[in-house]
């Protein structure tokens, strides 16, 4: 009796994934192989269930890779891809540079303060993501907070809003908890005796960190980088609010195709191509040896 239930419990996440991830992806994949049509919904072909097998066959014959060919030929899409990946990668590197010292600093505090600081890292989640990104507009706009501070310090004003820099800044701000938490988790579990062993064998504090602590925290670095890089590549809100018309990122391409151009197949094809690209780092992460964590 008990065993049956635990078997069901193990199946549950897979069922969840199938319903809320598998089916939607299949749906989008199918859309990406369709053509636009002046109809409602605006794509063709559709399955004619009344015709039975013949209808299914006609539907399959109507699917093609035309939309993908169009994407590959259009510089607009390729540029959006390139800038999406470039911006995500830049933001990921910056997140590591900011997040690692933060996680390290938190881990080094006494336990009481440590949990307070971890809470502080996730505290921004208590307020709306949208509101927090709007707040950055107030900070970055020409007559905003940043320029007021710069002016007070006697420095020339900067016009950051609607630039790539503003988008990267917003991404780093928005995704910082997703970088800090996995790093914190892996650093918190570190074995302090290994560092002592390194010190004992003649390594100064810096060398002990770079040759022992850091390599052993790499699984956390990889997890944090993936957790940030993947959603950032498809991010819509931050580039839309802080980036203006430039730079064009894939999230906004998908939105425009879907809602403005009503080209559902194109939007789907962009999404599927992005998904395929993002599978590469995930598969690389899966294949890395995990024994190190023991």
């Amino acid at each position, binding site marked *: 009796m008990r065993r049956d239930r635990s078997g069901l419990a193990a199946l549950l996440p897979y069922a969840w994934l199938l319903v809320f991830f598998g089916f939607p992806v299949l749906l989008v994949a199918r859309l990406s192989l369709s053509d636009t049509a002046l109809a409602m919904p605006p794509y063709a072909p559709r399955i004619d269930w009344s015709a039975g097998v013949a209808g299914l066959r006609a539907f399959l014959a109507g699917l093609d890779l035309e939309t993908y060919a169009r994407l590959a030929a259009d510089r607009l899409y390729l540029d959006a891809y390139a800038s999406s990946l470039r911006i995500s990668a830049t933001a990921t590197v910056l997140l590591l540079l900011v997040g690692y010292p933060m996680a390290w600093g938190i881990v080094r505090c006494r336990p009481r303060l440590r949990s307070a600081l971890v809470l502080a890292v996730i505290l921004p989640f208590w307020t709306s993501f949208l509101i927090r990104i709007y707040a950055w507009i107030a900070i970055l706009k020409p007559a905003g907070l940043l320029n007021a501070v710069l002016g007070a310090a006697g420095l020339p004003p900067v016009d950051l809003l609607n630039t790539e820099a503003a988008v990267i800044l917003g991404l780093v701000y928005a995704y910082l908890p997703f970088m800090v938490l996995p790093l914190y988790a892996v650093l918190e579990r570190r074995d302090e005796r290994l560092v*002592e*062993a390194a010190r004992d*064998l*003649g390594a*100064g504090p810096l060398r002990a960190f770079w040759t022992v602590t850091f390599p052993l925290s790499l699984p956390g670095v990889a997890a944090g980088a993936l957790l940030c890089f993947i959603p950032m590549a498809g991010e819509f809100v931050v580039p839309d609010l802080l980036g203006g018309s430039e730079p064009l990122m894939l999230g906004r391409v998908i939105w425009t195709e879907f809602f403005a151009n009503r080209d559902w197949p194109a939007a789907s094809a962009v999404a599927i191509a992005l998904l395929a690209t993002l599978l590469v780092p995930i598969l690389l992460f899966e294949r890395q040896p995990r024994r190190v964590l023991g």
Partner: protein
Amino acid sequence: MDAGPDRPVSTAADIVRFEGVSRRFAGHAAVDGVDLAIREGEFFALLGPSGCGKTTLMRLLAGFETPDAGRVLLDGTDIAGLPPHRRPVCMMFQSYALFPHLTVAGNVAYGLKGLPRREAAARVEEMLALVKLEGLAGRKPHQLSGGQQQRVALARALAPRPRILLLDEPLAALDRKLRGETQGELTALQRRLGLTFVVVTHDQDEAMAMADRLAVMQAGRIVQVGAPRQVYERPASRAVAEFVGEVNLLPRDGGGWLAVRPERVEVHGAPAPGSLAGTVREAAFLGDRTRYVVDTAEGRILASRANTAGEPPAPSGAPVWLSWPPEAAWDLPA
């Protein structure tokens, strides 16, 4: 009178001196005013129950702790200000603390950063040969058995050619059989290298089997220092006598005790001059010896007799007479 050490003790100069060293943690003195000298080239053991401060004392020598009071001298110089990586002292950690992301060779080479590449490689090879691990250089620690990991830890700590090797409970993680073997190998290695070994252990058999001299620690203080035989045969206090082996304590008129080890108590089937009459309460046959618990007018006395041929053990309930050679008993203060 004084029992000599069973091994010749080197007469070399002191390599380490602790002078009035104290180390407190949150008000509690883990090490409390310790004075101790360790001689160059000897195998020295710090023996004591867990929490007695022996590990803290070792960490003070390695540089992981700094004394709150007193001085730690290495070759006559105060090393208080030296961080662990500047001390010519290497440690074999209790759980070995091998670097899991490095190979066996990488672990052993870790302390050889200052050496030219070729020299370091030769040293790694030499060390792996020393601990008989040739051929395993490319393995990762998790691919090794516990005994092999212990050898890597030993090779890694010896590779930088330290002045002193510290061993924190070196045999604790090994199984019984391996422990006996490794114990012999460690002493042989120490003799061969002529290096000063300082071992921390809670196991008196281990300490006595390996060490040239040992210090018994209790509650942060050193209560006795001497050769194993000296400490065993003439413990300075009741606490030491009870910690190192078993002891019979017979109350003395006017306070204090007369102490005698169970293996020195003779068991006779008939009254002998000057013997103490008693009844066998328990006789446990232990193979090589028989252990008696005898009730006497002076209290309960333990006797441990070798089972030599032709001497049938006295059965439980039998009347017996106990005696011991006068030099086997000694006075202990109250």
